[in-house]
């Protein structure tokens, strides 16, 4: 085994909020019991001060690093988490938590409603980023950890990390926000709405009541195609596919696939349909669209009382969460006299860069965390 790998890991589950202690969600609806899927890597130290919580993207899961039994592929951020990696498991106790509303082992619309014995479907309450954070907080309390050394994530994971710092300022020592923003913009909402409409206009969707029957595969595949395009950049797509044709000398003059990029989107969306639930896609995109850290008030005032140190990373080719938007957030953080470092990494991968561009991110993250560990020991 490569010494830099974590080896075999296993997803675990934490269930709480059982009746009559159901959790009240941001919408006011009560929900319980709630299960969260999670994985941990590394060892929690004696004073429980080395915990880092990692948050995942829209369609990802708790399996962030290492290998699961019978799966040749490692977790989604394996390049970043492990011994001597950016999130060094020799030093830190890394917790990766799945989100409420997901279909990856946590309670979501595909889960069985204990009151009816049937899947929730659309009777599942709409959840928000704040609800994700609230459930993760309960989980952290269960682990007996009162403060995170760091909250870190990319894309939707970045939004969770930011929300953690605002909701629980005493519990977050630092935040690493990658390819994220303080609020969802009209463009992002619009793109999600197209994806949701694709699912909901599939006749198999049946108002979300399709479990045990034919799933809305075409709608979900279409929404994934749209999503996937937004995660790349014009440059990365052109470099990867250009105008290359698939197994033919010239275009077919019909509506079968001609170009490699068409095949790629079909392949990616077909594999997505096998691993993700259409209703979860609806719920989680909604939770993102509702996200506005300032909640229509002043962003600078929102960060008042926040104590964390920040590392904000963006990517030059990310047009879904563009750098200039994170600059807006950085300004509000600085206005609160907070310790903020930021870097716009120049690369062509688009929004997906945070999963692909390991080198630059690793340099920034490992040294940022290093400084904070020293400050913790020796004082600022």
């Amino acid at each position, binding site marked *: 085994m490569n010494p830099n790998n974590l080896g075999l890991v296993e997803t675990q589950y934490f269930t709480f909020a059982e009746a009559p202690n159901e959790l009240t969600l941001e919408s006011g609806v009560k929900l319980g019991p709630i299960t969260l899927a999670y994985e941990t890597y590394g060892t929690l130290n004696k004073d429980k001060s080395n915990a880092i919580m990692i948050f995942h993207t829209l369609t990802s899961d708790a399996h962030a690093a290492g290998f699961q039994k019978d799966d040749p592929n490692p977790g989604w951020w394996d390049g970043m988490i492990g011994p001597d990696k950016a999130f060094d498991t020799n030093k830190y106790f890394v917790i990766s938590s799945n989100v409420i509303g997901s279909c990856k082992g946590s309670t979501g619309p595909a889960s069985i409603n204990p009151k009816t014995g049937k899947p929730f479907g659309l009777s599942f309450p709409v959840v928000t980023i704040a609800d994700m954070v609230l459930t993760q907080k309960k989980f952290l309390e269960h682990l007996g950890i009162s403060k995170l050394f760091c909250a870190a994530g990319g894309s939707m994971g970045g939004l969770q990390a930011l929300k953690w710092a605002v909701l629980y300022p005493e519990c977050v020592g630092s935040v690493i926000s990658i390819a994220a923003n303080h609020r969802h913009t009209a463009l992002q909402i619009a793109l999600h709405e197209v994806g949701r409409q694709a699912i909901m206009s599939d006749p198999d969707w049946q108002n979300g009541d399709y479990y045990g029957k034919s799933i809305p595969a075409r709608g979900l595949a279409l929404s994934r195609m749209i999503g996937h395009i937004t995660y790349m950049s014009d440059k990365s797509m052109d470099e990867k596919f250009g105008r290359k044709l698939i197994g033919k000398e010239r275009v077919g003059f019909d509506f079968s696939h001609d170009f490699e990029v068409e095949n790629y989107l079909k392949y990616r969306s077909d594999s997505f349909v096998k691993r993700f639930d259409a209703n979860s896609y609806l719920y989680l995109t909604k939770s993102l669209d509702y996200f506005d850290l300032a909640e229509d008030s002043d962003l600078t005032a929102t960060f008042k009382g926040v104590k964390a140190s920040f590392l904000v990373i963006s990517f030059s080719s990310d047009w879904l969460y563009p750098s200039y938007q994170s600059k807006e957030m950085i300004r509000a953080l600085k206005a609160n006299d907070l310790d*903020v*470092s*930021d*870097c*716009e990494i120049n690369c062509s991968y688009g929004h997906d860069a945070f999963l692909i561009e390991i080198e*630059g991110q690793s340099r*920034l993250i490992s*040294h940022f965390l290093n400084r904070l560990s*020293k400050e913790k020991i020796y004082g600022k």
Partner: protein
Amino acid sequence: MENNQTSLVRFDHQIILDMVGRNSKVLDLGCAKGDLLSLLIRNKAVKGTGIEIDEQAIYKCIEKGLTVSHGDIDSGLMDYSSKRFDYVILNESLQEVLNPEKVILEALRVGKKVIVGIPNFCHINARFQIFFRGQVPVTHELPYQWYNTPNLRFLSLKDFKNFCRLKDITINRTRAISAQKEVKFLPNLFAHIGLFLLHKD
């Protein structure tokens, strides 16, 4: 604890170290790889932040354990409220900014004091090259040709003093240096670098 490596430290950095008060808050505009900021943190226990445009330099700063922001000086200052810093440093970066007047006045807004370091474009070597060779000067301190220089502004120590007078900026201290020594005699002719400690009421 004074650092025993001071002899290896750049002379202009030593002068700035001398100007900055202990435990103060410092913003270094155009902090490059963070050498000056690290020096100030080590020797004067300052709380320091940098702004730098070059991505590779940002990595170096973070590796040194510094707090640094990726961006240009021209727009980076508006992030800060008035008198947030004890010192704002513009060392060897002013000649590269698009709007130096605005940057200096903004620096004086966010900083109680401002330290400016500029290369002297009217050093005697430069004057000789213009006068006798009829060429725009290329010197050890200003090694660029007209077609590849990052410098947008060409000024002398005298030009800078005139500017301060015009804008009601008080110069608290002036240090003129050349290589490893101070220049007291005709600094506008013999100094390569001028360092000024400024404030504005």
